[in-house]
């Protein structure tokens, strides 16, 4: 049995980006955490925050290094695997987004280098914190700009689409229009909430675990302080995730109606439809679903929402996105309940941090959050299939179909399978590579880097 190259290209890129976003989420989470603890350290002069910043920087350097490599892999893979897509991108204003992305990347890189390797030469309580701010802005801006590209793929604009479909010629180009498509604001809002949430939860899960594992009083204090920050940030972000998610739904049925219909498993269009939780389509009937009457109507503001029957079945995306979407929502709700329960116990001074089962719960929900993010991404991407640019270009039209890439592609997959877990393990190790007394004592003469 031979695999069509287009499917291999699709899988290779999906695998690469699926791995990449794990690293990126943690990088963003680390950048935000470092900025937060540097601020708290400057404000309170609490040595534990200083030590926490010094410890967080080490894994951040690793995640940045591997994340950069992974980012380059993706940028070049796009050209290599989907040259048709990148040709269209490069002839329209979408390439302008990639161009600006590079400047955000520079902002992050240069300030990271200055903060990590030369930060000790900048005196002043708030100076080090100020050096971390552009790192956060750079990382978030990178994420925002990439999401802008994704938004354009979902709701393309900035060129004469009908002429392109008729002749293949790219005309009527507006180089700036792709910065703001009908779905850009909604997607950006959602990603700005969910991706940092994933990264912060990863750190929180690690802190919760280490807090219970450690017997050293100073180390326990350090992890406790870190854990409180992660819980507070996660709470805010989970609320923003829900809000932005609801807004996304509204945008979907307006601008990506087929994706919406598949996500909701709506056979026919209508108003005040029930919410189908799970289930599948048997012919033209939904079976096995838990139906919640009226919920879809409430979430869609009682609008007339689309159904699959309005479109030829050959255009339908894989209906598995209904399951990925529902699983994402159910797990997301559980995550929210967990975080609010945890925070509630904290407010009521019921010592949630000391409860072992809640610590393990935090670890479990770290995995859940990561899963929720990946499922959300899968829903978005699979929901656009067979299109790479919605209603403009299919994945098959965009792919290179270059069979020379098969074996090197397998090597890339193998490299990621080894590299990503190893990177996470290594980051956990370097976080605690120095004794707590050393980190609490303040910056040493050199940096923590071997050179």
């Amino acid at each position: 049995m031979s695999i069509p190259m287009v499917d291999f290209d699709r899988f290779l890129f999906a695998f690469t980006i699926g791995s990449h976003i794990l690293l990126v989420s943690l990088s963003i989470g680390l950048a935000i955490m470092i900025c937060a603890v540097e601020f708290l350290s400057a404000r309170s002069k609490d040595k534990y925050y200083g030590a926490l910043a010094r410890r967080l920087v080490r894994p951040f350097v690793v995640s940045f290094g591997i994340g950069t490599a992974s980012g380059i892999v993706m940028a070049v893979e796009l050209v290599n695997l989907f040259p048709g897509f990148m040709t269209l991108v490069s002839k329209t204003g979408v390439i302008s987004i990639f161009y600006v992305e590079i400047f955000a990347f520079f902002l992050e890189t240069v300030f990271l280098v200055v903060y990590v390797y030369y930060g000790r030469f900048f005196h002043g309580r708030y100076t080090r914190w100020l050096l971390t701010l552009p790192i956060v802005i750079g990382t978030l801006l990178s994420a925002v700009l990439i999401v802008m590209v994704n938004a354009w793929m979902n709701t393309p604009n900035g060129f004469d689409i009908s002429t392109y479909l008729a002749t293949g010629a790219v005309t009527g180009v507006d180089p700036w229009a792709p910065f703001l498509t009908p779905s850009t604001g909604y997607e950006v809002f959602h990603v700005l909430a969910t991706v940092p949430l994933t990264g912060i939860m990863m750190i929180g899960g690690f802190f919760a675990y280490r807090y219970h594992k450690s017997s050293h009083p100073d180390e326990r204090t350090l992890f406790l302080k870190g854990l409180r920050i992660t819980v507070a940030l996660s709470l805010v972000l989970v609320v923003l995730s829900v809000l932005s998610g609801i807004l996304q739904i509204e945008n979907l049925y307006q601008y990506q109606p087929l994706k919406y219909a598949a996500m909701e498993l709506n056979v026919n269009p209508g108003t005040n439809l029930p919410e189908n939780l799970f289930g599948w389509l048997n012919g033209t009937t939904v079976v096995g679903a838990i139906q919640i009457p009226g919920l879809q109507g409430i979430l869609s503001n009682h609008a007339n929402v689309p159904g699959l029957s309005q479109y030829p079945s050959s255009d339908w995306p894989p209906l598995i996105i209904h399951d990925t979407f529902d699983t994402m929502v159910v797990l997301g709700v559980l995550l929210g309940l967990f975080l609010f329960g945890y925070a509630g116990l904290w407010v009521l001074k019921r010592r949630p941090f000391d409860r072992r089962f809640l610590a393990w719960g935090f670890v479990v929900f770290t995995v859940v959050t990561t899963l929720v993010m990946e499922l959300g991404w899968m829903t978005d991407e699979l929901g656009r299939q067979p299109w790479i640019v919605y209603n403009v270009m299919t994945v098959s039209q965009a792919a290179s179909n270059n069979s020379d890439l098969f074996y090197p592609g397998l090597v890339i997959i193998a490299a990621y399978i080894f590299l990503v877990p190893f990177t996470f393990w290594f980051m956990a190790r370097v976080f605690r590579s120095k004794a707590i007394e050393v980190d609490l004592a303040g910056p040493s003469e050199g940096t923590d880097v071997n050179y």
Partner: protein
Amino acid sequence: MSTINWLFEINFAVFSIFLALFLTELMGGVLLLLAYDRAKPKVLPYIVPIWEVTGTFAAFWVVTSDFAYPNMLIPVASLFGGLIVVFLILIVARNASISFAELITKRGWVDERKLYQAYGLATLLIGVVVLVALSAIVSGAGVDLSNLSFSLGGWIGNAGSALYVLGAVVIAVGLAPVFYAFEPLRRLTLPVTAVGVLIEAGALYLYASSFLSASFLIPAVLTLLPALLFQSPRTAPIVSHKLVFAVVAVAIIFSLSYLVYPTAFNGGITVDSVTTSGPMVGAFYILSIAGAVFIGLLMALYLTAVQRSMRTPASPSPSPAPAAPTSPNP
């Protein structure tokens, strides 16, 4: 009267900066492979902060290329698809090895030294891959433009190819002691660099005699100049200054642009015919100018930080602050 193709010039300028930074890394990587203990104090303080910036410039060049040459993306993906994937694997290996080397504490079978040397090896191999692609773009060796295919056998079969890579490596070896102010090899720098330039000239001649025009004199002289100035104790510190050397390296690479403009692949493709057009040209200029100012400011900050590190003592340990209450819970 021919006009300047600013799209090409800007893209090639970004490429020159990337390649110059990469070559300084490559030279350091070679020294780490050959004489780790002696090279480490000179090489690592430079490489460790800069490798992240080099990677960023690599991404910058990729994006400006996508922007400037949209019609070349499908041909490039077909021609160099395999080579590009090898490049990607090596980039991952380079970044992973140096990231881990910076922070590893274990002194077992994988230690800091092995990881830094793995970085050196990965960087060297990336250099070879880049040189193979560049020489193919310059000469068209191994390239079949009508079928959009690249044959490594065909590339090797061209007498100039091996010389091209060899000449570049010899030049890098010759200039490495200059850049890293590596005194023990001072006397070797000029003859080795000169031999490298001669080999490179031979390679270009074998590719096409027209490549060895008067234009070649500029990069040749600029390449020999640092090696020459390194011989005198008075001028050696100037030419070994990292910024001065980097600027010269950028100038050398930029002066080689005549090899790929107005035609690349040894006359196979006219560059002006594949650059972007219409409203995207204006967008490219606006973003390039804004980006150049922005990156210039960031680089100024970076250089300020480096200068500050040379004359400022590191921040003293903060006075032991009163420990916050250590109760595990509020």
